[in-house]
């Protein structure tokens, strides 16, 4: 399994943390709150799209909402594969950091 990019990781974690009701604007806000990055909507969509294609995210369409002009919202939730991927990434990251000597901390 390929490890996730940082952006993908962030997205997955954000969706996971929001739990239900995770749709684009909320996700955007969550990421802003977590990382302080005001990401562009386009890249958010792109990321969500990619992750859905990799089956790390599950999509669900809501009923048409009036505030969106009769369009339905797209809700996301993290799939089992997504969770596995997150874990794998974390494991990899930890093992990487474990190799780093302690001196690193002292010198920096």
């Amino acid at each position, binding site marked *: 399994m390929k490890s996730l990019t940082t952006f993908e990781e962030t997205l997955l974690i954000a969706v996971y943390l929001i739990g239900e009701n995770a749709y*684009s604007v909320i996700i955007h*806000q969550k990421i802003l709150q977590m990382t302080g990055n005001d990401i*562009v909507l386009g890249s958010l969509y792109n990321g969500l*799209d990619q992750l859905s294609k990799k089956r790390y995210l599950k999509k669900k369409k809501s009923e048409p909402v009036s*505030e969106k002009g009769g369009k339905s919202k797209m809700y996301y939730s993290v799939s089992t594969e997504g969770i596995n991927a997150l874990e794998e990434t974390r494991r990899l990251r930890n093992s990487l950091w474990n190799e780093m000597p302690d001196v690193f901390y002292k010198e920096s």
Partner: protein
Amino acid sequence: MESKKIKLPFPAFKLLKLFSYYNNEFDIVADSTDLYDITFKNAGKLKANLWLFRQVLLSMIHYFKFRIYWSIIMFRNYLKIAMRNIGRNKSYSFINITGLCLGIASCLLILAYVNFEFSFDKYHRNANRIYRFAASGTQYGDEYSVAGIPALASEYLSNNIPEIENITRFAKPRFDTYRYKDRQYRENGMLYADNSVFEIFDFKLIEGDPGKALEAPYTIVLTAETAVKYFGREDPVGKKIRCRESFDLTVTGIIKKVPVNSHLQFDGLISMETVKKVFMHRYESPNHFEFYTYLLMKEGYNIKTLESKLTGFFNEQFGDFLNPLGRKLGVLMQPLTSIHLRSNLLYDTPGNVNILYIYGLLTGAVFILLIASVNYVNLSTVRLSRRAKEIGMRKVLGAFKEQIAVQFFGESVFSVFIAFILSIVLVIIAFPHLQQLSGYNLNISFLKDPMLLFESFLILLFISFAASWYPSFFISGFKPVNTLKGVLAKGKRRSIVRNSLVVFQFLISISLIIVTLGVFNQIDFLKTKGFGFDKELLLYAPVYTDDMGFGSEKVDKWVSSIKGELHALTGVSNASFSVNIPGEFYYTLPFVPEGLPLEKSFKAIRYDVEDNFLNTLGINIISGRGFLKEFKNDRDHSFIINETAAKLCGWENPVGKKLKGEDGAQTWTVVGVAEDFNARSLHDEMDPIVFSNFPHFHYIVIRIKPENINNTLTQIKNVWDRFEPAHPFEYMFMDEKIDNLYNSEVKLERIVRVFTLLAVIISCLGIFGFISYITEQRTKEIGIRKTFGASAFNIVNIFVKNLAVWVIIANILAFPIGYYITNRWLENFAYRINVGWKIFILSGLTAFMLAMLTVVFQTVRAAAANPVDSLRDE
């Protein structure tokens, strides 16, 4: 969020919708509204707007990056396909591009030449304010216009007409010899000029003072080339040149070589004051219309009012002198820049070109370009049909009709561009040959002519659109279902379009062949027809007896003594003198048969000739007698007239009848009638001619024997040098002179021939490509026919028949067109050939044979192929 509904600012909303790739699935506009809302509440309006602005900007950047990226990808694909197609169909591409390249190149060459013709005299700073003052008028009912006016006129003009800022005059000296130490040359390129020439025209002095270089009498300004000829490395300024061994000219300046595109060409300028010293009678005479007068107008002039004003002045000044001679005068103001192409007056500056000739060339160029484009359209339409599958595939994969059209349009433009680049290479190679064809020393470079570059750009645009439009739209309209099945809409209409294009090409080619043959035959006819006398072994040279005094004893003595010496030479069979020679223009005078009223007068050319002039030319006296030395009365009282003149007089037996001039001052007796001969050229009918024995001679005419011509010529020259040391012996042969009368026709023929050749080549290339396409399409048919026993001949026959019909149609259409054009041209000649069936048969056959040869050449290969190969894959 629900409580307050905030809308996005209008343009942002629009822009986001326009540029957002994800709008369909994710609805970026709605999301943005929400986010805008949140930011608005948290951070205020300014922050929210800033945020929104950033979003819009980013989405736009992204959008364009995306578009450009994919266009590049597609463009690379298109380019690759285009290159592959050119590479795959090498022979097609070659034919297609060659045809177009030839067309464009010849068009560019012609444009280069035409541009040059139009550039004449435009380089002068004051070009649009300079006019030439020419005289128009009538004399004895003849209308004529003369390029020059009397010298004195301009002195009056500068004093009395306030609109004129400056005036300069030019006049042409005779052929004269000029000598510095032992270097003696004959100069034909000298002009007399006023000093103001340097103020009006942009002829730049390299050395000398432009303010007074030509002020004093006996001064001369030479071009650098001429100066080097005489003085070598010496400094010419201040040196003296001896003119015709009688007076010295001091060199006061050196002038730059006159640009080729100047209608005034000279090797040196002699001050006008010199004319006053040397030829006072020429200068003062109101009868010498030989001073080219150029006026520089003040700003804000009105040429129309000036013209009428000057007409009044002209008649007032010269009326007393001219009216009794039956002359009326008008004024012709010729803008400097129009002289070269639009002026064709009497005694005009040499080298002027008729603008119709230029227009003719341009028409030819356009036709060549048209044929080439038609060719291109035809071939590429045919070629694109083979790519039906590709188009079907593209359409199935989601290409729009417009995209296909754009793709093929671009591909076509690409080929056109290659052809264009090649044609420019061709033009650069062929440029030196243009000089031969045009007769100019064109020292212009193709790349340095901005006008030409602009025009070639226009041609590129025109051809790109004209040649690419039809094929690309034709092809993009295919239905994918059909094309994928490999079935093309082979409608009758399409083949009619293609065939009529073939007809059109051949129509032009055949018409051109007819015209070429017509012109060629006519020139041949002109050269063999002759003038009614033996033009071989006849030479003539100018003589200068007028300088000895008009009709004086001295002339008689000189004439008889040089004639005696010449007759003593073994190589000379006859020698005589005349005021005029055939092929030279000479003015006509009115004559009235005695007893008839003045209105019955007719105009005839008057030849003042020495006794045996008619003998020398070989013109027989039909009745009566020739001039004889013994009859002293002949000089003032006798005429010989030619047959045409006799007919005009209405006399059965003219000998002994009397003729009067229109002024009625003198009565002459007709003593003989001579055979007719052409006095001008075969453009004109036989002219009535009246010969008199008056000693007023401009030419010596010598008939020599065919043996030892070089030796005879040296002997004649030796005799001449003894009798006329001041002037060189400048002989020419009469046959050359007469052939030279048709120089412009010969030049025309050369150009028409080149055009025809190009048109025929391009048309044949077209047929070649066309037929090879058809044979390829019908490979299977050919294979099946062969298996069923058709011979190669049968198969070739099918194609030949198919195309023969169209070429024959083209022939039938071309005959009247070619006939009309050729006949219109032939109307210039009084003596002309008939455009007979021979020309039509010949041109039709030529075109037909060439077309059929092409067809046969191409189909024989297909017909000879083994049917196994073509049917194998079924």
